[in-house]
């Protein structure tokens, strides 16, 4: 096992107390416990405070466009399935501008670990309402309270055919790291939504608020993450948000299904012109 500091590239400059510190720490612990070589990891980030992660974590990184982490990460994974591809998004990235991509990545069951940092606000742009902002919450973009009902990302993922659905809390790093480790070991698409307080722009959903509003599914008697009905029930809990490994099942993965040669990544194909095969195909144009 590696030391988690092997992945520590620089000290983050997020606001003191930001939930992203817990996520950063959990990610380092996960990579260390899986003994991953930094060059075998590719981390794709979107636009938001989380997007700085690439500046702090030692791995190949791609800081792309707002909302487009899923297609970027899919392209990378299909081109080189040997890479451990992580995508990190905010709630705006994943559930608003990139929502279409999110649903389709779930549907593909491509082996990506998707960490959605949900702080229920647009923090980088100074605090506008996000798709997970509570109904009625006053923000700089909703002076009379948000009129939109929030999106429940994990429930949406379950409905869309997600094969690994987990939710963690950045205030509880050890269980979060354990969940991330399971997610990275999962064959197929793994969603880990992380409830993550924004200490600057969201004074409602604080660490304390989260602690009072979450419950861990593994503490529920008889809970079985293989049971889809139980998972649905947990995600529809009227008062509290379920955390932990909520649902997991096995399904063929996209890369298994589409790649002709599993051993040889497309990215490292020899591109020399295979004349005999091409000449044969040309004959179809006669």
């Amino acid at each position, binding site marked *: 096992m590696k030391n988690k500091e092997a992945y520590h590239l620089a000290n983050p400059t997020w606001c003191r107390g930001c939930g992203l510190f817990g996520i950063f720490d959990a990610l380092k612990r996960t990579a260390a416990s899986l003994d991953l070589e930094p060059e075998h990891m590719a981390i794709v980030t979107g636009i938001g405070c989380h997007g700085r992660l690439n500046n702090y974590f030692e791995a190949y990184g791609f*800081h*792309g466009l707002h909302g487009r982490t899923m297609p970027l990460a899919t392209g990378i994974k299909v081109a080189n399935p040997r890479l451990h591809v992580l995508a990190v998004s905010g709630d705006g990235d994943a559930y608003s501008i990139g929502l279409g991509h999110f649903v389709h990545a779930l549907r593909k069951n491509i082996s990506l670990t998707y960490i959605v940092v949900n702080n229920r606000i647009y923090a980088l742009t100074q605090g506008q309402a996000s798709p997970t902002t509570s109904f009625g919450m006053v923000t700089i973009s909703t002076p009379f309270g948000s009129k939109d009902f929030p999106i429940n990302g994990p429930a949406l993922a379950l409905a869309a055919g997600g094969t690994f659905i987990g939710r963690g809390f950045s205030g509880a790093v050890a269980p979060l790291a354990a969940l991330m480790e399971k997610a990275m070991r999962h064959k197929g698409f793994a969603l880990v939504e992380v409830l993550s307080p924004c200490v600057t722009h969201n004074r409602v959903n604080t660490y304390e608020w989260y602690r009072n509003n979450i419950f861990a599914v593994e503490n529920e008697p008889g809970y079985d993450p293989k049971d889809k009905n139980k998972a649905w029930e947990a995600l529809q809990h009227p008062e509290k948000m379920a955390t932990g490994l909520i649902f997991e099942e096995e399904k063929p993965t996209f890369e298994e299904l589409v790649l002709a040669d599993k051993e040889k990544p497309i990215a490292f194909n020899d591109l020399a012109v295979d004349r005999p095969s091409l000449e044969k195909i040309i004959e179809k144009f006669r």
Partner: protein
Amino acid sequence: MIKDLSVMIGGKAGDGVLFTGNVLARLLKRHGWEVATYRDFPSNIRGEATSYTIRASQDKIYGLSDQVDILLAFDCDAIMTHVPHMARRGIVFCDGEEALRLPPDHSRGKTFHKVPLRSMAREQFSREIFKNMIALGALSYILDLNCSLLEQIISEMFLKRKGEEVVKKNIQAVASGYAKAKEITAEKERHPLMKGEDGDCLLLSGDEAIAFGALAGGCRFFAAYPICPASEIAQWLARYLPQFNGVVVQTEDELAALNMAIGAGFAGARAMTATSGPGASLMMEAFSLAGMAEVPVVVAHVQRMGPSTGIPTKTQQGDILQWIFGSHGEFPRIVLAPGTAGECFDLTVHALNLAEMYQCPVVVLTELDMGQNFRTTKKFDLGEIKIERGKLLSQDDLLRMKNFKRYEFTADGISPRSLPFFKNGIHLVESLEHNEEGYRDEEPLNRIRMMEKRMRKLKKAAPDLVPSHLWGDRKSRIGFIGCGSTLGATLEAMDELKERKVPSKFLQLRTLWPFPTAEVKRFLTGCEEVFVVENNYSGQVATLIKSQVNPCAQLRNILNYSTRAFTPKQIVNPVLKVCR
């Protein structure tokens, strides 16, 4: 002796017009003729009028002629619509009495062969669809075509998908049409076509040529969302890429398509996408990302009629400036415009090389007329293909290096590139402005240096780009400028003008960006009159020239924004007006 012949098949969508035309095109090609097709289809599956023109010539052709010589009409509408515009001594195959309803000045001079296609098909084969091969049988009699070639083509096209029984019945339908034509026509009504050797030629569409070019040029990752008229590229590759350890991903939209290709390009695959119309607009966002991130990627854009959803099945060149000046911010991009099916192949291979050499997005810009219509073309020379990967580092290179910087400032602006998984090459690809290491950097000096580094990449690219092609009489003082599929009509217009003692030359632009300023300047100084031929309303190529050549000679626009591709006359007439 007939040297040039246009056959139109007219009917309703769902009649099998396209299939029938494809069989005929192949048949004429196998007789050693040059072939060019033109489909005029509505954008729905069934019910509306469609026509498909197959032109064959003893000369090299790249498009339609001005007139239709033979019409195979599947219904009355086709007759009423197309007979008035036919050649004066045209031949019409029709079902029955509809010809009598034509005004005499439209039917005068033409020959009508009454072959009751539908009823013959119903009676003999109990399905109307057999009318198609009955019609081709009848045509084969009139033109004295080799029926065994036709039978061979039918079995090539049907055997795998539909089985022996269907092949047999279709061959019988051909014989039946042939016999019927023999029965109802006089020997002098036959026009035997010259038969030659089917040389070392191919018959394919621009879309197929792009797809094959992608395959040969090493594209192994293709992501796209279906859209007319670019879908054929992805569909073709979906069939062949797996055997080359490649993959086609059908994405949820065009935003995903280009982003996914960029992801694969970053990982090291030669990656590509294709689109048209609204899809291109969606790609504008990621186009800029590829420019900033310096990730190699190729976009094939088969232009269709806009704005908006427009007319998805009609050709146009309305998106040229979008790729040259479009998207947010400024970044280097290369835009190539093939004018023939052969160039669709060559330029796609080349685009994949350029994307890696210059680490920027490269666009292969064609049009529906090129993409979906078939042309005979010389067999592609696979021996000529070279795969150039530019400054791509290997694992060994990286292990020998100290302090690899992905966006290193270099004299030519191009920085060495490593791939994920390589040791010692870890880096961040950043959509924010960044420093040499790839980390966000907002310092003014860094910004200026980084901007100049990116833009510098194409400053000396000219020798690697595709030069413009000069056609015609170099000494003449009348010049045409154009790009893409308007080439065919332009060249034929030049032939006609020459016959009328108005010699001309034509500068076919094949790289639209970076703009070939020196070539165009040189061409303009040798002309007294310059006509820019374009399939759009506002004259986008002319606008481009004027923006890059200063001072610029007077440019006259020859524009066509109708639903049909240019015919030679549409180019000849405006020139004669000016140059008589």
